[in-house]
């Protein structure tokens, strides 16, 4: 440590030191950081797999790996990214660190349970990794584990399924903790409608985690039972129903996509007012749109199964609801724009990432609509168009929101400031690389290039090559960004308590926050986003 540590007052980072004090800490901020580091490591692993896949796709046929390797690679890439990176992602990292502070609490409702969830998470994550390497026999089912293939494929599928099951359990516990925290721990005077919007989005998310995850849990258990006990719920030769598996899987996994995006929406909803010094536009509609997304999002799972032979009636029913679930997202986009409109807009890195979130999320969302429409879905289902859709919306949406969040709260978390210039430069690489990486996939998807294809028709090569070039630009941006952040988390200039002049509670306490967050629990007397009464620090 540098000599500055003596000048920094005691805070959650330095009040106790040593690895052990971290691994046994029930402090929500430390747990949040532990999630962040784990997730970052896993993200890098999965991202490198993504890059390798892109290199493989440079030429038709075998380029650098065999088909078996490629198939295992997109499976584990998907499993890590979905179950380890983006589903816990924002909620477990920034939710843990900032939810209690933003509602004026000293910790979450069940601190020990919170630490326990982290261990469950780690167990699941390691199992997931193990499933890839054990016996040199990686599972190759895709992250969706469709039966009957997954009931017959490589033996490591059971390990991968168990990993997903365990990770689901961690997700449930986090959700449970957050709901109770929000219900029971708000500071005096903080009524529901005086709660900031990031906690609101976590609240909606937590309900999905709680009520959808068990379904996939039991479904994965059934597949495990199918493989080990030969029960055969999904095996047609025993009378089982492979499409029923798809129903059960998507009953969870569609709501799960909103587990990814809702906290991301919450993050940018915090950033826009702060960097415009203007209240959130339409607080109440934003709250209700979050709840509506959570609720309606529960009923549209069938749009992943439009071509699976489900009944005609349910096809149009699911398509119809899919379109309706887009409305709350639309409302949010317009509210964000109006929040900035008329403000005093300061284009610092967090805002830069937040507006690119809007751009990428809009593209991702609209291509989602294209997929939700019955006629076009028939053409686009399981093509690279879908791959582009969800990378735009997950990586472009949730990923960029994560980047926005880390740039926004970095000074609060570490008490130091990163370098703006490098942040902007890395943003440039990320943004350009991202679009070059995924946009061509829309085009070749429309032309009919299927996903999960190791080999392809040479007519798609232009798109594939452009996409791979994009991946290299993107990785450059990522390395720049991560270096900037890692370096300055220890060496950066000391940051003030409230560098962005934010008004939510986390900005009213020192940076980094003291172990107990608040010396005295604050009393809330007004709505969260009031910039007309500047707070004194």
């Amino acid at each position, binding site marked *: 440590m540098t000599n500055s540590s003596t000048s920094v007052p005691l805070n959650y980072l330095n009040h106790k030191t040593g690895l052990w004090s971290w691994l046994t800490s029930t402090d929500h901020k430390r747990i949040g950081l532990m999630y962040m580091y784990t997730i970052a490591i896993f993200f890098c692993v999965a991202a490198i797999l993504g890059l390798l896949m892109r290199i493989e796709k440079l030429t038709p046929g075998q380029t650098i790996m065999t*088909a078996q390797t490629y198939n295992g690679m997109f499976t584990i890439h998907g499993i890590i990214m979905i179950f380890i990176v983006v589903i816990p992602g924002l909620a477990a990292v920034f939710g843990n660190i900032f939810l209690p502070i933003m509602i004026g609490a000293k910790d979450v409702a069940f601190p020990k349970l919170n630490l326990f969830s982290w261990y469950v998470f780690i167990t699941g994550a390691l199992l997931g990794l193990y499933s890839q390497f054990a016996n040199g026999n990686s599972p*190759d089912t*895709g992250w969706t584990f*469709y039966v*009957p*293939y997954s009931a*017959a494929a490589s033996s490591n599928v059971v390990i991968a399924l168990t990993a997903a099951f365990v990770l689901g359990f961690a997700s449930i516990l986090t959700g449970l903790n957050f709901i109770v925290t929000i219900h029971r721990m708000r500071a005096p005077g903080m009524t529901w409608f005086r709660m900031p919007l990031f906690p609101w989005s976590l609240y909606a998310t937590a309900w999905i985690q709680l009520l959808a995850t068990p379904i996939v849990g039991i479904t994965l258990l059934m597949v495990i039972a199918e493989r080990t006990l030969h029960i055969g719920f999904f095996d*047609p*030769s025993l009378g089982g129903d*492979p*499409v029923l598996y798809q129903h059960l899987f998507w009953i969870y996994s569609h709501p799960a996509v909103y587990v990814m995006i809702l906290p991301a929406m919450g993050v940018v909803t915090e950033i826009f007012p702060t960097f*415009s*010094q*203007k209240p959130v*536009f339409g*607080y*109440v*509609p934003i709250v209700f749109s979050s709840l509506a997304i959570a609720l309606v999002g529960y009923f549209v799972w069938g749009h992943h199964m439009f*071509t*699976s032979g489900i009944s*005609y009636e349910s*096809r149009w029913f699911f*398509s*119809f609801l899919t*379109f*309706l679930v887009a*409305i709350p997202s*639309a*409302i949010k986009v317009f*509210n964000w*724009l*109006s929040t900035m409109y*008329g*403000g*005093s*807009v*300061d*284009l610092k890195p967090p805002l830069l990432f937040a507006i690119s979130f809007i*751009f990428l999320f*809009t*593209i991702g969302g*609209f*291509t989602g*609509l*294209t997929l*939700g*429409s019955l*006629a*076009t879905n028939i*053409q686009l*289902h*399981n093509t690279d168009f879908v791959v582009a859709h969800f990378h735009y919306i997950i990586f472009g949406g949730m990923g960029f929101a994560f980047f926005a969040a880390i740039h926004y709260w970095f000074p609060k978390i570490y008490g130091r400031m990163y370098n703006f210039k490098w942040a902007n430069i890395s943003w440039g690489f990320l943004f350009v690389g991202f679009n070059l990486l995924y946009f061509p996939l829309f085009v070749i998807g*429309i*032309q*009919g290039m*299927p996903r*999960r294809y*190791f080999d392809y028709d040479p007519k798609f090569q232009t798109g594939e090559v452009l996409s791979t070039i994009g991946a290299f630009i993107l990785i450059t941006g990522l390395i720049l960004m991560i270096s900037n952040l890692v370096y300055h988390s220890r060496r950066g200039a000391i940051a003030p308590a409230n560098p962005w002049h934010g008004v939510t509670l986390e900005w009213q306490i020192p940076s980094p926050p003291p172990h107990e967050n608040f010396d005295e629990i604050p009393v809330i007397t007004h709505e969260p986003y009031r*910039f*007309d009464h500047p707070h004194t620090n």
Partner: protein
Amino acid sequence: METLFNEGSNLAGAVDRAFIFIFAVSFIFTIGITALMIYILIHFSRKRNKNPQQFSHNTKLEVVWTVIPILIVLVMFYYGWVGFAPMRQVPKDAMPVTVIGKMWSWEFDYGNGKLSKELVVPYNKNVKLNLVSVDVNHSLFIPAFRVKEDVIPGYKNYLWFRPIMKGTFDIYCTEYCGLAHSAMTAKAVVVDSLEFNKWLADLKVTGNVPDHPGLAIIKANACLTCHSMDGSKIIGPSFKGLFGRKTVVVTDSGEKEIEANGDYIKKSIIDPNADVVKGFNKGLMQSYKEKISAEDLDKIVDYFKTAGEAK
């Protein structure tokens, strides 16, 4: 762009219309939103606008931007629906072709043992594809025709189209099915009716003549574990020479001789313990009432009939 504007089938037009509508709306909105963002960044930048306004809602605006997207998505839904609905209404006269998906190749069964590795179809004639999988899930995708449907074991999925463009088109498997998923491709060839008929006539009957549909059902229900085809007696009487055979059966009201006609065969399957063939035990064969539909019963009878005539 080869396939997007290659409208290879009668269904393609409506799909593309839906696509173009959604694309146009998306394009306008994305450009509009981006432009607005840039405008805000410039016009309200901190340098120019030191004093942020403090408004925080406007009910009229909020209603407007809720209602307009609702209307827009309803139209999108409508286009998607009308583009899709005909895909599920197979014309009566459609020529059936059975598509067999297996790891990792396609086979197109034109009936009577005529199997092909290519899907050859007559120009401007309705074709119905019945999708059968012998192992895991697959999905048949012909981009130029805008058709795709999963091929799932145990399911009777189907799709249909009327090719309106001659030429050779790609067929892909779009449901992950293991190692060589990406190699599970084939070609669809659209030719004149005349040419098609000639092609079909020339198509060799390949080794495995497919079973008579009735026999297929018999095999699928494992009837042959108890009934032989060669005259030997297993648990039940042999199927050899069944049709028209004179048999003595034991009923509740004593013995009688019957001739095995269609009705008797059906009855033996649905209610096997009513007329028990003399020399065999009652109660061994279970009723297949729930498992074999009336349609399939007809096919079984038809099979026995044709097998009998062949002798």
